[in-house]
């Protein structure tokens, strides 16, 4: 759902993200169609239909409880771990219905970074290597190479290369979150979902993570949920605005923030509520 190229004022000091042309392939990376989701009798998502473009950063914004995290977690089927939930509708990854695939396979291809960093009580090395090992990669040299590569991509390598055998819990909050990103990247996911990854971090740590997202965009498709509008504006190519379980508007980020077509969107991005 991309829009034609337009001349616009930059809204941050960062070089403006380009208005990317629509993806050339007809099949988007993820396509959700008429997705409804229920926690018990409460309907958390209403008829969500949207396409996630490959190798772009897509952000979900909206006030608390609007369903953006719920939708995110549906994309890698994490919601299934919660009891008493029900889903209607489809989600397709590269055209395949994710609910017909083996759930562990889906999650390997669609990785997730959580709001609060959750490193395993293992060494830094073992944290990143875990995903590789359970997926059958055993050869020491390959594991070591991949761990290093993942840590480099997560902008953490220089800080931890001398202490790979130290416990992960000894790292700072921002470093732990980057470790979790490295861990997720190690299994080479096709999509990386981030659920408010910076909400517990200070501005400098947040900046580091936002910068690394730009770097890894071409490796994987990124979907990020954020309650911080400015972050979406800084980082995302496309933004979806959720309210009360409905997708109100989904468009190029520039458009959403500068020229939204729905009133609710405009009210939210101008701070009238939320």
């Amino acid at each position, binding site marked *: 759902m991309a829009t034609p190229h337009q001349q616009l004022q930059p809204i941050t000091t960062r070089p403006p993200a380009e208005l990317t042309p629509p993806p050339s392939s007809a099949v988007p990376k993820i396509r959700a169609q008429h997705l409804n989701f229920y926690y018990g009798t409460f309907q958390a998502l209403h008829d969500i239909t949207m396409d996630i473009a490959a190798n772009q950063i897509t952000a979900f914004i909206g006030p608390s409880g609007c369903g953006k995290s719920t939708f995110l977690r549906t994309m890698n089927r994490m919601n299934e771990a919660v009891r008493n939930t029900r889903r209607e509708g489809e989600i397709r990854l590269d055209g395949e219905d994710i609910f017909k695939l083996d759930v562990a396979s889906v999650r390997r291809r669609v990785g997730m970074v959580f709001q609060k960093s959750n490193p395993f009580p293992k060494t830094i090395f073992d944290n990143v290597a875990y995903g*590789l090992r359970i997926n059958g990669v055993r050869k020491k040299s390959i594991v070591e190479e991949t761990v290093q590569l993942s840590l480099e991509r997560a902008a953490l390598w220089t800080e931890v290369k001398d202490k790979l055998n130290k416990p992960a819990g000894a790292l700072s909050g921002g470093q732990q979150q980057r470790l979790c990103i490295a861990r997720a990247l190690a299994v080479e996911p096709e999509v990386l979902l981030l659920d408010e990854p910076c909400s517990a971090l200070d501005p400098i740590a947040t900046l580091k993570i936002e910068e690394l997202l730009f770097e890894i965009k071409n490796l994987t498709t990124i979907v990020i949920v954020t309650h911080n509008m400015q972050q979406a504006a800084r980082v995302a190519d496309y933004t979806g605005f959720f309210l009360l379980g409905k997708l109100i508007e989904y468009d190029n980020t520039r458009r959403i923030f500068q020229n939204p077509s729905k009133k609710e969107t405009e009210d939210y991005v101008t701070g009238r509520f939320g």
Partner: protein
Amino acid sequence: MTRQVTFRRRFINAFMLSLTGVATLLVVSVLFFILGYLLWHGIGSLSWNFFTKLPKPTGETGGGLANAIVGSAKILALATLIGVPVGFLAGIYLAEYSGRTFAFVVRYITDLLNGVPSIVIGIFAYAIVVKPMKHFSTFAGGCALGIMMIPIAVRTTEQFLRSVPTALREGSMALGANKATAIFTVVIPAAKQGLTSGMMLNLARVAGETAPLLFTALGNMYWSAGWSQPSASLPVMIYQYAISPYEDYHQQAWAAGLVLLALVLSINVTARLIMSRGSSLARR
């Protein structure tokens, strides 16, 4: 890396997870087996005789375990009289009065006592009661079981008194009550559910104890008058009858086992219900 999770991983997943279900089933079924066998073998021998008659000499049928039932009742009553007050008061001290280090010491020692094997408690009771008195007695048995009741009484009391919010204590004292009054008129009643349930579980636990009675109350084929004679008790009789070579005794052992288990389990279940449902059940 493969796109699909290998069959091997999925198989291991399903296999191991079902194994855990099997393990649970096995364990739970043991309970039903126990109940089942006791009912099957024991219910036939439960009769009026069983509850009212004395044991008959070996080989004769028709005897009962009346003396064991009464003996157990006497021993347990004495044990409660000895163990509960000591434990209860000590628990109050730990919860309301004590300083940090002394409390730590008392708690550690209490846990130590809790971990003493019951047969060693029997040896202890033998040394301090049976030897001076120069004979086995109901009193010695009561002492042994009473000592076993102390640690749990202390822990339960302290735990439930501590769980009463400070606001209640302060409310009482603000009305002019001194500390002791506050404790006995407000705090303890507020904790009465947990305390009652805890004491019941305590009693259920020692009701089934056999080892400490083996050389304190010993055993008796007849009535035991007073407190200074050796006395029969249900658990000891079960043991003695079970290892005897007589079929009639075996039958009675089953019946006694059924009675003992029914007693212990019903106390347990009642105690837990009191905890979860509230004091309305206790008034029944």
